[in-house]
């Protein structure tokens, strides 16, 4: 699920229009990739969005899913999630680094978004070819009118995919609006009786939003855990 949420953030960066298919790549499912690319062209260069999200985590331990809610903002490849409930937390994805801020704990964590742990992260850097090395893409029937639904499936490691791991969803389904390719829903299914569904509402263009506005403003005294550094190096301030 860690990679799932990061993947989502990076996927949003991707769908915000900062990605173009790599030329000369041979797609695993060329028709599906082509169809996805055409769909994303409908965004007409819009790269700034705001919205609200509801995340439902299904677990075999409970009858009811675990629900989290908050807002999401995307600007020029930078993505920011502000979770309000059940407790406040912030996630910002920028320049291949994922930053988590937990105000109640006065703690920040930095992670690298690499191709192995966040396969969709490659999209944020414009490397569609790498995505195709890790995932199979297929289109699904959408039961919601006016939407398109597709599925990413990690390729097995023996084929060079490298994306499959105990922490990677077995399947990721994504629902986009037909007209402007706005993100409607993402589901991560891990095949272990568990899944995470994210639904987006009021996802709309925000041309006035800038990437700088999405930066974290950290209060003094926050403890930083920098996991982007090699193991034996001390953590650096953000």
């Amino acid at each position, binding site marked *: 699920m860690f990679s799932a949420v990061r993947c989502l953030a990076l996927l949003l960066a991707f769908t915000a229009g900062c990605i173009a298919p790599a030329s000369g790549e041979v797609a695993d499912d060329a028709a599906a990739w082509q169809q996805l690319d055409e769909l994303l062209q409908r965004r007409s260069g819009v790269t700034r969005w705001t919205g609200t999200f509801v*995340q439902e985590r299904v677990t*075999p*331990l*409970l009858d*009811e899913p*675990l629900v989290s809610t908050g807002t999401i903002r995307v600007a020029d490849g930078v993505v920011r*999630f502000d979770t309000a409930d059940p407790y406040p937390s912030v996630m910002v994805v920028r320049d291949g680094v994922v930053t988590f801020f937990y105000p109640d704990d006065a703690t920040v964590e930095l*992670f690298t978004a690499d191709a192995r742990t966040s396969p969709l992260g490659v999209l944020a850097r414009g490397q569609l070819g790498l995505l195709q090395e890790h995932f199979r893409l297929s289109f699904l029937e959408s039961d919601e009118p006016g939407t398109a639904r597709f599925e990413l499936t990690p390729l097995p490691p023996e084929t060079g995919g490298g994306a499959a791991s105990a922490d990677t969803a077995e399947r990721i389904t994504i629902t986009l609006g037909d007209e402007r390719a706005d993100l409607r829903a993402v589901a991560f299914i891990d095949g272990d*009786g568990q899944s995470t569904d994210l639904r987006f509402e009021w996802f709309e263009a925000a041309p006035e939003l800038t990437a700088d506005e999405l930066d974290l403003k950290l209060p003094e005294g926050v403890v930083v855990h920098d*996991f982007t550094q090699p193991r034996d190096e001390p953590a650096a301030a953000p």
Partner: protein
Amino acid sequence: MRPIGFRCLTPSLRSVVFALFAAVWLAGCSTPLPRHPGLSPQQAWATYLERQHRIESLRGRVELTLTDADGKRRTLDGAVAVRADGHARLQLGRLGRDALDLTRRPDGVWLWVSPQVSEQRSALENLDDARGRERHPMAAFADALVWLVRPPIDEIANATATPRQPKGRLVFRSAEREATLKRETLLLTEVRAIDSAEGPGWSVSFEDHRLDPATGLVFSPEMRLDLRDNATDDRFAVTLRMSRPELNAAIPDTAFGPRRGAEPVSR
């Protein structure tokens, strides 16, 4: 100009305001806990045990907070399910990402830790160092999860109350453990290891007791485990706080299947 206050309201408005205050006050009151006045210590202990043994399971959303000796804390949230027959499972994460999945069954304990967590120096990274020890610390913690429905008081069951009882409390003691009940409500508030000069010590406290209206049983959805090493005076606390707890729900065995990729840990 007259100050605006209760007295300037008409009688009918006053009654409306009074009714609103009464409604708010009543809404803020939880169902009162049952009281058992006038019991001898032995009767009180027996009554508590009978009540506690009617609790078969507990589950709900959970927030786990780790607090070190300096007061620094880390919080993870997720779900927990515990059955009195020794089954327990705890799933934790942050911001919706899974970090840890711990399963305890009578036939073993399994642990899954997110590759990101284990590979990138999280608070849980030292778990690897514990492998090879006689008892894995997460196996011990898995045992402690069961305390949510079966507090560690079995060996105290036949013990007598201590001669001196603090006001409003009943303290029961065995050679190694001490349990404290509130005298009238018979709420178990703490169980602790009798201090030794060296080695680890622990205490577990139970908070926020409430009455389950469906079963009429009293339970605690909040458990705090305080760990200390008496030799070094290192201290550490783990608090499990459940929200929307479900008491005595039928939790199927399938809920306790270890997560795919989980590894068995020594017990």
